[in-house]
C-alpha cells in the first residue's frame, strides 16, 4: 500500500526537482521542504493527509500517524522514507546525501523552526499545465484578408500555408438545404428552394439565416444536440426502468433556452444551480433537472459503492458537458495524462456530495423527489447547507476512505484555484453548485467558452475545430485553428455569451458555403484526408431523428405543433420487444394523432430505444455522447427497405400525388419535388417511367395496384443516397 501511495507522488516529484540551491544553514530546511515535498504535502494538496509546511503540521503527521520523533532521526518515518530504507521511498528520486544529512540533523536537533510559521507552497510547475487548453483565452488579431469575414480570414491563412484554395461556393439550392438541416433538422420545401434560388437580393442568405434562427424548430434541433451530451432519457434504466415524472420539462427548458438564445453562462448556471441563484424562477429550477438525468439503480449491489458511482457519474457528466475534461479519470489516482490530481476529482465531487443519498427507495426515481427535498428543488445531490466532509478514496475504493478533501475548484486552472466559500446564512443548500457554475462561467476559465464554440462549429461542419469535443485534455486533439477557436470564444463572451450571433457569423462565411467537392480533392486528400484545413465542406449523413422527421416531412404528415409537453411513444413492432424482461408492461404506443410529432419528442426509455433510431446511430443514454457515430451497415438498409413506418409514408405520398396530379410525367415530377425538393432530370424521368411500367404489370389485378405502383417509386426515392445525405 505504501508503495502505491508512493507511485502517486512520482510524477509530481519529478517536476519539482530543481537544482539544489542550498541557501544558508538556517533556511536550508525550508528550502528542502519547499522544493522537494510541498508539491504533494503542502497547501495545494496534502497527500495521505500529511502537510510538511509548518512545524505544527510536521509534528502532527498524517493518516499513518506521526512522521518524526524529535531528537530521534532513526525512529522517524520521514527520515526512513528519504533514505529509501523501507517500503515507503520519498521522493522517488532519492535526495542528495547532503540534503538527507541536513534533514537528519534537523530532526536530531528537535526540529528547530525559524521564520514564518508556514512555508508557502511553491507554484506548481507541472509542464502539463502549459497545455493549450489551460491557457487564457486571448483575442488574436484577425489575419488581413480583404472582403471576407473573420472566420474566413483565419481559414484562408491556414490554406495559404500550403498554397491551397478553398472549394468553390455551392449554389443556392445546396446552401438552403444545408442551413435548413443544420438549423432546423428539416428539409425546405420545393417552393422554398425555388423562391430562394431565384431571390435577386444580395441579402437573401442573411435573411434566410435570420428567419431560421427565429424559427421555433431551431431549438428542437439544437436542443437535441445538448440532450445527447447530458445523456437525456426519461427512465432510470436497470430492471424496473421507471419513468422519471416531469423530466420532459427539462427537455422543453433546453429547447426554449436555445430558442430564446439564453446566454451560455446563464444556461450553465441554471442547470447546475437554478435553485441556488438569487433570481431563481420555476424555469431555472426545472433546469436543475440536469442533476437527475443519470441512470438510477434502485437495487444496487452495494449501496455505499453505488453512492460513489453516482458521484462519479455526476462528475463525469459535468466535466464532459461544460469543460470537456475527463475529471472522472482521477477518482482512483492522479489523472494519467492531464494535470488533474486525485484531490481535484474529490474537490469537484464535493459539489454533488450529500453524504446521505442512499439508493433503494423506489420513490427516488433518479434522486429523492420533491417530497423529500421540498417542493421546488430538483437537484437531488444535496440536502442541507452543511454536509459531512468528503474523503478521498484510496484507489477509488469506497471501503478505503482517506484524508478529508477541502471542497474547491480544480487546481488545473491555477488562476481560479481556490476553496469554496461557506453557504450564505439563509441558504438551504451548500451553494457549491453555484460556485462551480460561477467558476465555469468566469471569463478567466479557459475551457468553457472554447468548449461551447467548438460544439457550435462541430454541428455546422460535422466535426469540431477540436476533433475531440469531449476531451480537451492532453489525449484530445489539438485545435485545427487555435487562433480561430480563441477568436470565436472571445467573440462569444463579447456578445454576452449569445449563440445566435455565432451561428450567423459561421453560416454566412465562405468557409461554410464551400462545396463538398473540390477540384483538387485527390491531391489535397493525400496530405490532409482529415480536412483539418477545412478546404471543402463535408457531406453529412442525416442523423436518426432528422431522417425520421424528413420521412414525415416528405409524406406531409409531420406535425410541428403543438411543441413540447409529454413525450409520445412511437409504434414499435412486437418483435422488437422480445429482449425485455417484462414484455407485457413494456410499451404502449401513443394514439395515432401523436405518431407524427418530431422525433425529439419520442419517449426515451433506456431499456427500449426505438429500433429505427438506434439503427441509425442514436447514442447510448448512459454516458455523455458528444459526437454521434456515423455507421453504414446493412440493418439500416433493411430498415428503410422494409420497415412498415417507411412504407406507410410511401403509401401516403402516392395517394396524395394521385389525388392532386394526373399524368405519369407530372406525377413523377411531383414525387421528386415532394421527396427531394427538386425537379427530376430527363434520365431520371425515363428510369422512373420504366419502373412504374414494370411494377404496374407485377401488381396488375391487385385492388390498390395504382397506388402500390406509385408508392413503389416513392419508396425508392425515400431510400436514395440523395435523401439521406446533405451535400
Amino acid at each position: 500500500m505504501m508503495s502505491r501511495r508512493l507511485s502517486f507522488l512520482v510524477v509530481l516529484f519529478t517536476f519539482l526537482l530543481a537544482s539544489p540551491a542550498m541557501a544558508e544553514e538556517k533556511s536550508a530546511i525550508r528550502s528542502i521542504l519547499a522544493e522537494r515535498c510541498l508539491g504533494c504535502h503542502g497547501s495545494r494538496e496534502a497527500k495521505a493527509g500529511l502537510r510538511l509546511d509548518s512545524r505544527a503540521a510536521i509534528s502532527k503527521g498524517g493518516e499513518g500517524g506521526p512522521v518524526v520523533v524529535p531528537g530521534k532521526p532513526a525512529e522517524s518515518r520521514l527520515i526512513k522514507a528519504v533514505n529509501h530504507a523501507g517500503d515507503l521511498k520519498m521522493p522517488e528520486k532519492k535526495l542528495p546525501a547532503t540534503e538527507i544529512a541536513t534533514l537528519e540533523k534537523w530532526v536530531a536537533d528537535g526540529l528547530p523552526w525559524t521564520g514564518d510559521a508556514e512555508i508557502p507552497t511553491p507554484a506548481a510547475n507541472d509542464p502539463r499545465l502549459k497545455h493549450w487548453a489551460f491557457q487564457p483565452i486571448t483575442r488574436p488579431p484577425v489575419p488581413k484578408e480583404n472582403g471576407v469575414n473573420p472566420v474566413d480570414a483565419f481559414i484562408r491563412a491556414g490554406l495559404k500555408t500550403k498554397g491551397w484554395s478553398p472549394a468553390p461556393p455551392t449554389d443556392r439550392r445546396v446552401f438552403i438545404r444545408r442551413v435548413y438541416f443544420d438549423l432546423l433538422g428539416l428539409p425546405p420545401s420545393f417552393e422554398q428552394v425555388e423562391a430562394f434560388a431565384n431571390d435577386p437580393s444580395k441579402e437573401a442568405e442573411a435573411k434566410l439565416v435570420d428567419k431560421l434562427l427565429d424559427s421555433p424548430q431551431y431549438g428542437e434541433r439544437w436542443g437535441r444536440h445538448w440532450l445527447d451530451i447530458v445523456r437525456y432519457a426519461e427512465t432510470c434504466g436497470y430492471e424496473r426502468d421507471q419513468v422519471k415524472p416531469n423530466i420532459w420539462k427539462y427537455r422543453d427548458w433546453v429547447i426554449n433556452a436555445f430558442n430564446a438564445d439564453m446566454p451560455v453562462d446563464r444556461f450553465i448556471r441554471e442547470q447546475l444551480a437554478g435553485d441556488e441563484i438569487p433570481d431563481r424562477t420555476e424555469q431555472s429550477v426545472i433546469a436543475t433537472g440536469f442533476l437527475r438525468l443519470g441512470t438510477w439503480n434502485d437495487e444496487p449491489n452495494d449501496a455505499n459503492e453505488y453512492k460513489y458511482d453516482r458521484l462519479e457519474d455526476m462528475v463525469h457528466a459535468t466535466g464532459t458537458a461544460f469543460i470537456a475534461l475527463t475529471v472522472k479519470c482521477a477518482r482512483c489516482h492522479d489523472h494519467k495524462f492531464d494535470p488533474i490530481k486525485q484531490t481535484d476529482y474529490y474537490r469537484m465531487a464535493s459539489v454533488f456530495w450529500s453524504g446521505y443519498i442512499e439508493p433503494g427507495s423506489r420513490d427516488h426515481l433518479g434522486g429523492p423527489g420533491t417530497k423529500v427535498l421540498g417542493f421546488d428543488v430538483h437537484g437531488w445531490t444535496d440536502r442541507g447547507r452543511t454536509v459531512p466532509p468528503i474523503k478521498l478514496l484510496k484507489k477509488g475504493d469506497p471501503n478505503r476512505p482517506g484524508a478529508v478533501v477541502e471542497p474547491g475548484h480544480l487546481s488545473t486552472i491555477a488562476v481560479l484555484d481556490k476553496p469554496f466559500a461557506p453557504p450564505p446564512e439563509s441558504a438551504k443548500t451548500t451553494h457549491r453548485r453555484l460556485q462551480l457554475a460561477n467558476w465555469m462561467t468566469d471569463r478567466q476559465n479557459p475551457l468553457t467558452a472554447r468548449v461551447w464554440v467548438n460544439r457550435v462549429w462541430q454541428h455546422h461542419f460535422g466535426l469540431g475545430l477540436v476533433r475531440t469535443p469531449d476531451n480537451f485534455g492532453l489525449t484530445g486533439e489539438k485545435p485545427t485553428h487555435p487562433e480561430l477557436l480563441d477568436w470565436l470564444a472571445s467573440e462569444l463572451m463579447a456578445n454576452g455569451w449569445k449563440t445566435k450571433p455565432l451561428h450567423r457569423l459561421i453560416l454566412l462565411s465562405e468557409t461554410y458555403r464551400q462545396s463538398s467537392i473540390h477540384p483538387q480533392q485527390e491531391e489535397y486528400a493525400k496530405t490532409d484526408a482529415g480536412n483539418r484545413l477545412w478546404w471543402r465542406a463535408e457531406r453529412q449523413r442525416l442523423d436518426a431523428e432528422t431522417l425520421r422527421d424528413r420521412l414525415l416531412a416528405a409524406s406531409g404528415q409531420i406535425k410541428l405543433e403543438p411543441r413540447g409537453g409529454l413525450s409520445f411513444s412511437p409504434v414499435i413492432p412486437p418483435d422488437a420487444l422480445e429482449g425485455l424482461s417484462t414484455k407485457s408492461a413494456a410499451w404502449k404506443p401513443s394514439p395515432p394523432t401523436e405518431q407524427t410529432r418530431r422525433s425529439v419528442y419520442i419517449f426515451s426509455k433506456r431499456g427500449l430505444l426505438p429500433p429505427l433510431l438506434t439503427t441509425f446511430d442514436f447514442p447510448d443514454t448512459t454516458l455523455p455522447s458528444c459526437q454521434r457515430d456515423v455507421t453504414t451497415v446493412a440493418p439500416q438498409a433493411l430498415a428503410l427497405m422494409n420497415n412498415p413506418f417507411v412504407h406507410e409514408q410511401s403509401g401516403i405520398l402516392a395517394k396524395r400525388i394521385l389525388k392532386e396530379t394526373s399524368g405519369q410525367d407530372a406525377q413523377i415530377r411531383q414525387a421528386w419535388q415532394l421527396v427531394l425538393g427538386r425537379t427530376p432530370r430527363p434520365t431520371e424521368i425515363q428510369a422512373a417511367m420504366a419502373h412504374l411500367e414494370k411494377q404496374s404489370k407485377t401488381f396488375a389485378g391487385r385492388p390498390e395496384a395504382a397506388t402500390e405502383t406509385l408508392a413503389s417509386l416513392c419508396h425508392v426515392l425515400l431510400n436514395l443516397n440523395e435523401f439521406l445525405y446533405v451535400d
Partner: protein
Amino acid sequence: MKSFFPCGQTRREFVWEMGGGFAGLALTSLLASEGFTFGKEAAPAGPLAPKKPHFPVKAKACIFLMMNGGPSQVDTFDPKPTLEKFAGQPLPEGKKFINSGGRKMGFLTPSFRPFKPGGKSGLPVSDFFPKVREHADKLAVIRSCHTDSHAHGSALVAMNTGKTFIGRPSLGSWAVYGLGTANQDLPGYVVLMDKRGGPISGQPNWGSGFMSAAYSGMLFRPTGDPILDLRGPAHLSGAAQREQLDLMAKLNQEHLDARPGGRDLLARMNSYELAYRMQSATPEAVDLAKETKQTLEAYGVGQQPTDEFGRNCLIARRLVERGVRFVQLYSGGGHLEDTWDAHQSIEKNHGQHGKEVDQPIAALLSDLERRGLLDETLVIWGGEFGRMPFSEGKGEPGRNHNPYGFSMWMAGGGVKGGMAYGATDEFGFEAVEKKVHLHDLHATILHLMGLDHEQLTYFHQGRNERLTDVYGKVVKDIIA
C-alpha cells in the same frame, strides 16, 4: 503494452487512417474482399471485416449458453458431500455475505440430486444434467468463479460486460471488435432469447456501449423472422423488390457520378446489396427444414420441454457453421421461476430448466464434434452467479443468490476436457482455491479466441478501455 489505439491517437483518427477518408464517415460492414471499386475509389473495409487474432488459436467462434437466473453449483457441477453431514445446521458464523432481497435464512441443505462420475475422467455431474454428463471428458468446470453482485440486474450486466453498471460493451462486442466476422451476409454477433422474455436490464446485456453500434449484438427473435425488417409488404417481395433495388442503384449511380470520391455513398450502395442477401441468408440460417430427422430428434426439437432450447442450440450450430463469430443463448427469461432463479424449489426449478437444456446441450456438443467444429468452437455454460448452500427457511427447498462462489464450464475451442479447476469451501459457499473472478473468466475467453485482453483496447473519452478494466488473469490451466 501494445494497444489498438495508442495514447495520443484518438479513435476517430484511427478510423480516418483505416478508412483513408473523413472522420467516422464510412464505416461499413462490407467484406474487404468485395472491394467493388469505383474509379480509383474502393469502398472502405467495414468494422466487421475479418481481422487476425493477436496470436494463433483453435477457436474461431464462441457459443455462450447463458443460464439466466443463476443455477446452483452444489446441485449441478460442484459436489459437496459435507453438506450431508451438516444438513439442517446454519452456515458457520464468520461467513460473511449479503442476504439478497433480505430473504428468510434457512439451513445447510445437501444437493437435491445425486452426483455421478462421467466419462473416462470421472468428472462428477449431478442428475440434473445426465446427458451433459456423458460429455464430461469435454468439460473444464471452473468451480471457483466469483462475481461482484448478488442482484440479477447488475450481475447479468457484469457477466456480459465486466461491470455491474450498464453502458459498457458486451463480451460479444469485444470479440467482433477484435476479430470481425467471417460471413458478411450474417451478423457477427447474435443473441437468442428465451421466449419467456429477455434478461433483466435488457439491451445493455448485448449492447456495444461506447463502441460503434456496428459491434452490438443482433437479437434473433425466437419466433417469426429472426431479425427486424427482414421482409417488407408481400407485394414487394421477390422480383418487385429487385426492381426497386435496380432503380435505386441506377439513381444512386447518377448521384455518385456527380460526386467523385464518394466512398460513403458507395459504401451505402453496397449495403443495400448486402441487406438484400441478408434477407435470404438470415432466414436460411435459422431454417431447420433441411436438418435430418435424426438431428432434430437429437436436439429435442419437436419434443417438450426441449423444443425451444433445442432449436436455439441447433440454430447456434448453424450460425457458427456459417461463420458467425459469437452466439449467446439464453435459457430462462423474465423473472423468478421462469429463469434459473430457484428461490422456491431447486428440485422443481432446476428440474424443469435442466430438462429443457440438458439434452439440447449434449446434442450440441456431439453435433459440433461430429462435424469437426468442436475444436474451433468455444462453448461456455453458466449463469450470472450461483446459489447458496443453505435453504430459504426451515424445510424450504429453494436457495438464494450467491456471488461468492459458483461454477461455470467451458468445452471445445482449445479447452482441456474432463477437469475441474479451483474449489469452493467445504460447503460450496465461497471460492477459496484458485479463485476465478469474472474478469479472469473474460480474460480467459478472449484468450481462447486469440485476443489478449490487455491489448484489446478501445479509446474512449481519454482512456484506453478494456473489457477487463485493469484486472483479469488468464486461467492457463484449462487450456489444452
